[in-house]
């Protein structure tokens, strides 16, 4: 079977997976306690007011009817409107998802580079001083919660030393936004040819990316150290060394073996961070999907929650498809 066929087959499976995801999440949200109408109307609303809101949201319709109408509109590309802001969910999603993706992609690149560096060094000098230092660093990174890391970075780099801008979102208050094309500010500013805005966007990304990057570097560091330690002990590496290959080449041979599990781990982290960066987004006033979904969950804003689940599911499924393709391309032994 060709790679082309594999991708085609998997692409066809994406709508099926998403349908299952939507149905399951719809039913699970039904089990959530609480009444969104009460949250909207406030604590002092009368019963009539609440009943009116319930009716307008369609909450009184039977479950089956609501499910069918929701699935029907999702198929037509309509994710509904937020119970609270009355904004279309799809429009808000298309603004917020790129903001989160930009943050998470850059953070994982930082985490990958720092983590691999620490992990490979530790594995190579296993049991020696360097290993103790890198392991200590990894443990330190891992034991600092991401919100604390963010606050520390803000305190030092913004408040004390003023090398980073204030945590006020993707751009400063006085900066003019550029036209949205991709939603990724670093790309959009370059498309608009606005170098100044590019640097402003970069500066605002600096601290949240660093905060997430350092914390998640610990995860990469741990995975890299354990997989590299096994690879460096392998017969293949010994044979490469016995053939007289230089050490950096020998380490690279080991990395060729270790990279697949590290990549897989990176993909899993990516999926988790789509919603998992909520606290960092909140601290940096980042207009991403994480804090959006979090507040929707707290206020029972069901269309928003559904929209988020759908988007996160789509991103994760696509990512794993890309990962599988990448693994096939990287390892000639993999059969599919």
């Amino acid at each position, binding site marked *: 079977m060709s790679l082309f066929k594999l991708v085609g087959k998997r692409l066809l499976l994406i709508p099926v997976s998403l349908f299952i995801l939507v149905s399951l999440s719809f039913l699970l949200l039904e089990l959530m306690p609480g009444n969104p109408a009460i949250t909207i109307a406030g604590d002092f609303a009368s019963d009539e007011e609440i009943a009116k809101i319930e009716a307008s949201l369609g909450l009184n319709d039977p479950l089956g009817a609501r499910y069918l109408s929701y699935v029907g509109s999702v198929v037509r590309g309509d994710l509904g409107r937020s119970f609270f802001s009355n904004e279309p969910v799809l429009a808000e999603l298309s603004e917020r998802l790129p903001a989160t993706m930009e943050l998470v992609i850059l953070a994982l690149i930082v985490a990958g580079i720092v983590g691999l560096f620490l992990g490979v060094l530790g594995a190579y000098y296993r*049991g020696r001083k360097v290993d103790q230092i890198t392991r200590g660093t990894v443990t330190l990174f891992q034991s600092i919660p991401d919100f604390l890391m963010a606050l520390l970075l803000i305190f030092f780099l913004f408040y004390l030393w003023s090398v980073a801008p204030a945590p006020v979102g993707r751009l400063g208050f006085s900066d003019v936004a550029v036209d949205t094309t991709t939603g990724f500010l670093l790309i959009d500013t370059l498309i608009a040819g606005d170098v100044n805005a590019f640097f402003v966007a970069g500066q605002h990304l600096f601290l949240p990316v660093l905060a997430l990057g350092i914390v998640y570097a610990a995860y990469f560091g741990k995975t890299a150290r354990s997989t590299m330690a096994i690879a460096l002990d392998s*017969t*293949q590496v010994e044979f490469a060394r*016995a*053939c*007289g*290959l230089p050490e950096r*080449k020998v380490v690279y041979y080991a990395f*060729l073996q270790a990279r697949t599990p590290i990549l897989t781990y990176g993909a899993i982290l990516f999926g988790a961070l789509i919603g998992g960066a909520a606290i960092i987004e909140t601290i940096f006033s980042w207009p991403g999907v994480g804090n959006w979904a979090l507040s929707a969950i707290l206020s029972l804003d069901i269309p928003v929650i559904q929209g988020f689940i759908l988007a996160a599911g789509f991103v994760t499924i696509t990512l794993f498809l890309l990962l599988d393709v990448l693994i096939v391309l990287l390892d*000639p032994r993999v059969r599919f």
Partner: protein
Amino acid sequence: MSTPRLLDVRGVVASYDSARGIVKAVNAVSFSADRREMVGIVGESGCGKSATIRALLGLIRPPGKVVAGEVLLDGQDLLKMTKKEIRQVRGDKIGFVAQNPFAALNPIYKIHRQFHNVIKAHEGRSSRRSTRKRAVEMLEAVGIPGPERILNGYAHELSGGMAQRVVIALALILDPELIVADEPTTALDVTIQRQILDLLRRKTVDEGRSLLLVTHDLGVVAQYCDRVVVMYAGKVVETGAVSEVFARPAHPYTRGLLQSVPRRGTKVQTLEGRVPSLIDYPPGCAFADRCVFVIDRCRKEVPELRPAFADGGSVREVRCHVNEQEVCADATVNS
């Protein structure tokens, strides 16, 4: 003994720091190899035969280290070399043949790239065309039909015998003087074993190299090797020409090994007991507890390697307090 030997290993000690203490995996091991000579290194698993060849290739990794001895290759001491110098020796002067070719070959790179990398590591920049030409010639020389196709493929597409030939070709691509083979046929089936050993023998004897063959298969030693080094618990316990050692073993352990080879019509004798822990090394002879010839002296005094069978045709050495005539007297061994 007029010309210096190609390889002279003298008193090599390699130890590992483990949580329970220092393990001397290679304990004052000495042996030598001449050109056109195949030397078998035999012993049970854990006797230090693999550690010995890794010590002479500079492949002992921390927490292990070589703490004493000399490894003279063409008169140059490999153990005194810098990391860079010993790296140049590996592959160039010593070719290494691994036990399991599928574990040894890089699974991600095409075979040609692996040849290319080895040549480049020793000779600097080389064109892909020139390395390909050399790889084709070498693959043909080790009996691989259609080498071009093999070079464009990956290790996992090969059969076991072909993969081991590729490993041998990689080991020989820079024309080393010494081949070190670590159980090169253990992972292969019996019919392929012969072909690989015949190939190694040709490459050694016909082309004037020297071969160290680590194995636990006495049949292989009897058939292919000129001399044998028997190891036990990190030490050499007996050396000598294969024909003589097999006809008249001087060490009770060698005798036990030979008797434990299955033979038609006779009951297989087993060596009772186990190799002692290398951490709590016994005060006397390490083999004393399993030895049928054991005397009081064996438990108190460590035997030294001494000449045996002065009447024999070649130099023989044994590490045993008991007289060798006594040991070989009732040995019902004939090779």
